[in-house]
């Protein structure tokens, strides 16, 4: 009853969905087959349902779908470039930072948001960015190493040689 139409941009695609007044964003995303958005605790503790809302990580289990109207969402499905993984995803694989994988989409998204803001984060900043995603398999050490390595790759790729020299001179 009282469904409303919302318009969202998910992973660059425009989508229009009919949502019920009490529907949560997590439920709608999974209904729409964005299964990389994981259902965990549903009380905002574990962070497995994290998505980027206008570039910032939020827990989709605590947000009403209606509140996403007009906003831009990024889920793990939108991180790779076609068949090519994002360097951050590659780094997670290279460092063995994935075990059962349930928390991995959220870890990638939360640290991606960090890298957009801070190209060269400290280990503390990486740990802080991961602090809202609970991993019950292996821990955080390998994900932290992966993110720090990805930051190096990204900034090396982003800067042409002249800019790197200029950076060094400062």
């Amino acid at each position, binding site marked *: *009853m*009282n469904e409303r139409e919302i318009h969202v941009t998910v992973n660059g695609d425009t989508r229009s969905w009919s949502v019920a*007044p009490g529907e949560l964003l997590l439920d709608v995303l999974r209904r729409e087959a964005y299964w990389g958005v994981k259902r965990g605790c549903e009380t905002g503790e574990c962070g497995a349902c994290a998505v980027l809302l206008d570039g910032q990580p939020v827990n989709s289990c*605590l947000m009403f779908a209606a509140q996403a109207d007009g906003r831009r969402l990024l889920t793990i499905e939108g991180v790779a470039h076609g068949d090519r993984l994002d360097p951050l995803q590659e780094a997670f694989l290279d460092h063995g930072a994935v075990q059962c994988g349930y928390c991995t989409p959220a870890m990638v998204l939360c640290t991606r948001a960090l890298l957009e803001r801070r190209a060269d984060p400290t280990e503390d900043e990486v740990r802080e960015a991961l602090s809202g995603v609970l991993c019950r398999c292996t821990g955080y050490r390998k994900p932290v190493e992966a993110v720090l390595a990805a930051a190096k790759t990204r900034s090396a790729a982003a800067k042409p040689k002249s800019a790197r020299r200029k950076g060094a001179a400062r």
Partner: protein
Amino acid sequence: MFDQLRAFHRPTTIAQALRVFRTERRRGGRGAFVAGGTDVVVVGDRRLRYLVDVTNLPLRYIRRRGGGWAIGATSRMADLEHSAQLRRFADGALAEAAGTCGSPQIRNMATIGGNLANASPACDTAPPLLALDASVVVAGPAGRRTVPLDRFFRGVNRTALDGGLLIEILIPAPPIPRRGRAAWSFQKLGRLKSDIAVVNAATGVAVDQSGRCAWARIALGAVAPTPLRARRAEALLVGRVPDRAAIAEAAARVAAELKPVSDVRGTADYRREMSRVLVARALEECAGRLGRSS
């Protein structure tokens, strides 16, 4: 999860929000205002029949006003935490407290208005706001009223809102004595930084040019049904140089003003003792900051 909701409204003005809330209330059933959802959804009250979302209201701002501050109620914890101006104000006590309100994702969603309106005894932004003599502006059918924060909290999850909508937080310019100065501190005890507080505390100390305390503010959370000011302990400091002995005396006095409960996070005795420790730590930090700036 909220299958029983008949309506989810998204007004864009305060007047509209109040009007739609009133109309829904007449239709019957329980309703609420919602912003970040980090309390409303977690509590998951199945009796709710309608929600009025306030995140489309123009209430997301942090502005200087008359030497003090006006903060819109839907400002996110992350907005406060990252505000360069707020981090410089009152030794960053409020920005620091906002930065401990849950995980990064929670801080991108949770609003300062929601944090206060939820009236958790452990609300992290309350102690610094109490120490800063803050008030809240409540909009209701009969108009707007300003309620000092120390009269806003009425009990666990109970406030003076009375069906109104919290729209703004006002912080007056701190009354710093002529040729004197002031310092603030925020302290929190939890298992991790972003956990719910076992005890939290904020203090403010102003000294005159002779170095004597002109006024002190000591506010605590999670040690009574509401966040509170420890006024008798504050009074002990006035007129004295805030040295180690004066601080120890004031911190010891705090325990007498509290009504802590025992729960999974700590016993009442533990909370009382940690209140003393945290207040001493906060006052020492204030004294240190006052000493350094002289």
